[in-house]
């Protein structure tokens, strides 16, 4: 069973199917010819290389060729007509009308031409009159070669078992339009005419016999094989292109000027045949007009009289010259084809004279749309388009990466370029180097303003201090200060009072003024003092404070007798909590390493509440809050006083303003200290600092006011300028 390979998926399918079993693609073209069969050896689409007897879409002439290519057994099984096998006697029987096949137009025209106007025949006298030098090569060869070696008889050449004679073995008959006298006939023509009996016997039609023309029978020669070979090659090529049909293109034979001249196509035929040694042993018959001035149009292709036999059903559409060629003979003469092709003909080049014989319809057959002269196309090897031809590549050629061209290593530079390069390099190297510019000592306005602020403040404070002018009035003491004074006034002599010095050394100017007046007040009252600090520098500050008060206020307080420096309480809030609960366990000795709890006035102190009062001097609100939170609850209604910096007032004042008060009295900043001194009438550092302090505040206020106004004016001017520019 023949198989057809699907052009899309490449899988075999039965030849009866029109579509693929696997991909449903069309297996057969719309023109009726199968694209590709499984047993096809051709790679061209639409060119069946092997006969497919089962394909009904093939023309009959091609079927006949394929039938002839079948095995001898198969060929023998089919009886051949008698005229082919030579057993038919002198003629053919008139075929039945029912068996007649439709005669093609070109054949019908040819018949009509034969009936009406006989084509020109080559007269013997004209041929004799041809000059020897002007004779074509084929005529020369005929004169020389064929006469010397006469070909055997056609019937003898044909093997008896050969069922179907090839067209090449058939006699070629030249039909002269006029009878040529025997005296004018050349010798070689005479010889040929003597051997043309077979040809005359093979004429199937009686009318053909009546035509007064001379039949020239060219017997096959030894070169027959080579001729058959190239003809078979041409058959294979032309079979793929088209079946021969009738051509409207005439071939003219011009006998003017005593020479045989053909039309361009025919002349091309002879030019192509010059190098081929086939003699006159062609498969066509020519009708050459004897009239030298007459030009006869011969319908193409020139057919043998055999083709006019209406009994040849099988070759009704097949030209005679091609229909008789069997594949066996074609295969047998392939070697000869190659030898001929090597000599003069290109393998794929069709001779012009043969192309002229090919009917135009066959050339224009739809199945031969793809020209054979086209460059060989590449079949897709993989993917769903496997087997298809002319598939566009997935990656265009232009997208393929190319190796960049290598640049020469050595650059040819002229002297001028070298100089320019050196200049350019010098410019580049000097670009990174800092330029030498004259240093300008410009003091920024902001630095001037800073220095001005500092100088004005120093001038104001120092001027007041140096002058000793107390222009500032001591303010009225606030209530919290009065409360603190009242509490301290209420302390009895010898009462133990705990004082915490928890301010930073930087705030000593403000805090010492407040602490000094408190100490002075306490010392005046004869209170015993115990000092602690949560600041590592506290002991030094305490010692400095006591020494200062003793010196400035005229007191003679002695350590351990009247005051004790307990030292530093570590741990922050936890230390304060521990000190509040167990003062003896947290503080075991004085700052200078002496036992403090053995002193008489401290011997009764076991808890923090045993102190008559606790006074906290701090600048840090956090320290003040820690004392209030951790110690004040343990005091058991003992007063907690604070001398704080002015910056800590907002944070400490809430403890004073609560009810009950967590802080019993406050001495706030320099103003509170000055008021305190003013009230107890013991002027000290606070009153001394008060006037310079007021002077500094006034200067600060003036600078802020003037500076702010200046800045505002400048800013407004700048904005106006910008608005004018934008407007």
């Amino acid at each position, binding site marked *: 069973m023949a198989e057809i390979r699907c052009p899309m998926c490449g899988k075999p399918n039965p030849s009866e199917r029109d579509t693929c079993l696997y991909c449903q693609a069309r297996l057969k073209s719309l023109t009726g010819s199968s694209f590709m069969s499984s047993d096809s050896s051709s790679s061209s689409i639409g060119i069946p290389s092997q006969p497919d007897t089962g394909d009904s879409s093939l023309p009959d002439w091609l079927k006949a060729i394929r039938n002839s290519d079948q095995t001898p057994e198969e060929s023998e099984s089919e009886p051949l007509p008698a005229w082919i096998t030579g057993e038919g006697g002198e003629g053919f029987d008139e075929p039945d009308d029912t068996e007649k096949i439709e005669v093609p137009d070109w054949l019908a025209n040819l018949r009509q031409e034969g009936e009406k106007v006989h084509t020109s025949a080559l007269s013997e006298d004209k041929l004799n009159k041809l000059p020897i030098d002007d004779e074509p090569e084929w005529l020369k060869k005929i004169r020389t070669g064929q006469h010397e070696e006469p070909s055997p008889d056609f019937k003898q050449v044909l093997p008896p078992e050969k069922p179907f004679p090839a067209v090449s073995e058939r006699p070629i008959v030249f039909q002269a339009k006029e009878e040529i006298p025997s005296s004018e006939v050349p010798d070689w023509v005479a010889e040929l005419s003597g051997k043309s009996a077979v040809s005359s016997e093979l004429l199937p039609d009686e009318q053909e016999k009546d035509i007064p023309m001379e039949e020239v029978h060219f017997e096959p020669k030894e070169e027959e094989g080579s001729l058959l070979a190239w003809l078979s090659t041409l058959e294979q090529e032309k079979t793929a292109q088209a079946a021969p049909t009738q051509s409207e293109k005439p071939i003219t034979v011009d006998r003017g000027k005593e020479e045989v001249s053909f039309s361009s196509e025919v002349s091309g035929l002879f030019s192509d045949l010059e190098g081929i040694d086939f003699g006159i042993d062609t498969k066509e018959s020519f009708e050459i007009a004897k009239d030298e001035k007459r030009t006869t149009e011969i319908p193409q292709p020139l057919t043998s009289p055999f083709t006019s036999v209406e009994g040849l059903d099988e070759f009704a559409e097949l030209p005679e010259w091609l229909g008789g060629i069997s594949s066996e003979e074609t295969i047998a003469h392939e070697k000869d084809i190659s030898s001929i092709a090597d000599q003069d003909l290109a393998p794929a080049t069709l001779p012009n004279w043969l192309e002229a014989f090919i009917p135009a319809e066959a050339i224009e057959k739809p199945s031969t749309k793809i020209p054979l002269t086209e460059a060989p196309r590449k079949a897709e090897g993989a993917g769903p388009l496997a087997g298809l031809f002319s598939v566009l590549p997935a990656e265009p050629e232009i997208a393929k990466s190319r190796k960049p061209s290598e640049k020469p290593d050595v650059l040819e530079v002229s002297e001028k370029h070298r100089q320019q390069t050196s200049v350019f390099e010098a410019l580049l190297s000097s670009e990174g180097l800092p330029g030498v510019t004259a240093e300008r000592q410009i003091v920024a306005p902001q630095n001037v*303003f*800073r220095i001005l*602020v500092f100088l004005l*403040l120093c001038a104001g404070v120092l001027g007041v201090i140096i002058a000793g002018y107390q222009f*500032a*009035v*001591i303010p009225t003491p*606030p*209530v919290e200060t009065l409360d603190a004074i009242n509490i301290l006034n209420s302390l009895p002599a010898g009462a133990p009072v705990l004082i915490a010095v928890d301010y*930073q*050394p*930087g*705030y*000593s*100017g403000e805090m010492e003024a407040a602490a000094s007046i408190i100490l002075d007040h306490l010392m005046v009252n004869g209170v015993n003092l115990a000092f602690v600090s949560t600041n590592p*520098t506290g*002991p*030094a*500050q305490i*010692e*400095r404070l006591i*020494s200062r008060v003793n010196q400035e206020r005229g007191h003679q307080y002695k350590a351990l007798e009247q005051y004790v*420096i307990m030292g*530093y*309480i*570590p*741990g*922050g809030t*936890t*230390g304060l*909590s*521990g*000190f509040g*609960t*167990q003062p003896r*366990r947290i503080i075991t000795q004085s*700052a*200078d*390493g002496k036992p403090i709890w053995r002193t008489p006035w401290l011997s009764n102190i076991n808890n923090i509440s045993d102190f008559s009062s606790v006074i906290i001097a701090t600048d840090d*609100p956090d320290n003040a*809050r820690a004392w209030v939170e951790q110690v004040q609850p343990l005091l058991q209604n003992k007063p907690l006083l604070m001398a704080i910096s002015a910056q800590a*007032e*907002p944070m400490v*004042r*809430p403890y004073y*303003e609560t009810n009950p008060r967590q802080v019993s009295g406050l001495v706030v900043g320099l103003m509170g200290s000055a008021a305190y001194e003013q009230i107890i009438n013991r002027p000290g550092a606070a009153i001394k600092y008060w006037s310079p302090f*007021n002077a*500094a*505040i*006034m200067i*600060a*206020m003036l*600078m*802020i*006011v003037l*500076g*702010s106004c200046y*800045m*505002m004016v400048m*800013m407004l001017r700048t904005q106006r300028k910008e608005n004018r520019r934008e407007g």
Partner: protein
Amino acid sequence: MKFNLKSIISASIAIAAGVIVLIGYFINLPYLDTLREVFLHWAVILSAVALVMGIFNLSYVHIRKIAAQSTGDVYSGILLISLFLSAAIVIIFSPTGGFSQWLYNYIILPVEASLLALLAAILIYFCVRLFKRGITLFSLIFVCTALIVLASMISLTGFQIPGISGADGIGALIVRIPSVGGARGILIGVALGTIATGLRVIMGADRPYNG
């Protein structure tokens, strides 16, 4: 689930100590008070030890910096010299001794006081330049408030600016009302934050001891 014995032990100790000290404030039990006092005593000692450890760590870092000859090693040398010299003086002559007092009176106190004096001048300068970047509502409020408070503090030759100076002036009101109100809000926030932090430590959610 993976348990870390070290973290469990440390968290247990921290939680137990916190709970015992907290309960000691609310429940008056003799043994709880004693235990709380012991814990507080340990805390004070550990704080002192931590201060000493901090001094050693500071010395170690700067010694390595000098050994590596990195940038600023000269300042590290000055710091170490000052540290060991001050420690030696305080240890030998006590914190209230003559040399210690000299160090405080002539080195520590002037340096810190000078810094605060510069701070006053810088504050005035930036208060002046506040309008250079533009006049805004808050800049106006800031400058006006500063001027009012300063003005309320001064008394030139007994003359007080009416409505500004004095106990009933605007300056006193600013200090007592807005400042105190803001300060109380801060204190309340601090108290709440402290409570939350304490509870987190007691519940083990926050482990500042890296347990």
